[in-house]
């Protein structure tokens, strides 16, 4: 199996486990069953990366965490603003539609969402690959979707590597909420991950 296929296969396993853990964490926080589906794990700079959150210019709200420790990398979770605000209402136990602006409270809640989901994936990777990994505190992203996505591409591609992208769909009792999760190990760490995957 080519090394990139191996990596995608391994990260798909990690993503599924991360999704279970993140769903568990979110269900506790939101007081209702939240499940997270992972429709796709892929490599590279796909032009349709932002479709999941409404296109390149769609305004998104989300969080970015850097990974340090045995390997380094990036985790970013983005939602269309309206959907992020729905998540905030669920987290705060409010009727949907209560939060209408990405104010300080909403940004703080989205940071916590990024923290829970991002950490779940980072910890799933750490356990799978037997690594010690530390997610950073979340930085809030409130921008046009493509801007943070291309910035992560640039960071990773400047080291000559592939970007691993995981699309997520979050589902709660009210239906579907689409989000985009990007997990990108720095290329310098790929050999180590591939050894684990092989």
């Amino acid at each position, binding site marked *: 199996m080519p090394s990139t296929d191996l990596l995608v296969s391994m990260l798909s396993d990690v993503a599924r486990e991360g999704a279970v853990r993140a769903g568990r964490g979110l269900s506790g926080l939101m007081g209702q069953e939240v499940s997270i589906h992972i429709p796709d794990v892929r490599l590279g*700079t796909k*032009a349709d990366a932002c479709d999941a959150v409404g296109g*390149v*210019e769609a*305004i998104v709200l989300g969080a*970015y965490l*850097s990974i340090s420790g045995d390997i380094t990398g*990036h985790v*970013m979770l983005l939602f269309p603003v309206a959907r992020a605000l729905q998540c905030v209402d669920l987290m705060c136990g409010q009727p949907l539609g209560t939060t209408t602006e990405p104010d300080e409270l909403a940004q703080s809640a989205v940071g916590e969402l990024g923290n829970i989901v991002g950490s779940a994936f980072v910890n799933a990777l750490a356990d799978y690959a037997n690594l010690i990994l530390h997610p*950073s*505190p979340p*930085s*809030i*992203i*409130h*921008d*046009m*979707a*493509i*801007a*943070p*996505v*291309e*910035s*992560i*591409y*640039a*960071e990773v*591609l*400047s080291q*000559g590597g592939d970007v691993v992208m995981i699309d997520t769909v979050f589902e709660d009792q009210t239906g579907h909420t689409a989000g985009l999760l990007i997990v990108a190990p720095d290329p310098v760490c790929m050999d180590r991950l591939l050894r684990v995957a092989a």
Partner: protein
Amino acid sequence: MTAPAADQRRVSVGIGQIAVSKNANDVLIAYGLGSCVGVSAFDPQTGVAGLVHVLLPASEGKGAASTEPARFADTGVDLLIKLLREAGAVPRRLIVKVAGGAAVLGPANAEKFKIGQRNAEAITERLKHHGLRAAAADLGGIRGRTLELHVASGKTFLRTAASPANEL
């Protein structure tokens, strides 16, 4: 910004892409420049316009430089000038504008990630190599930007998530 003409054609210039046009109906657009830098150039005499969407500062002999030269500041600026010249533009007449090079992954990470700043520096340097400098620039900061170049007028406009289009 004027109301869009009915036959206006909006040409998206994606990451590592380049577009050159002298069709007055065209608007060349680089959406959501984060750490990327958009370089626009316009020759007012011939009406030839071009836009390149640069992702990384230096090709450094990377394989992608031959397949996607517009991805890098050095090869991207070189290609922009070459294509503009082939379309009839005279390089010394070019009005060049640059935008982007932000650190959008949060202020806490701005010190760590300097790709945006490096992109901006590399482009300025490469323009200088061609005897050019930007007539206007909006670089750095922590916000993504969309850059539009209207071929009919040669005017450029910038907008962010927080602000509507303003002429650059």
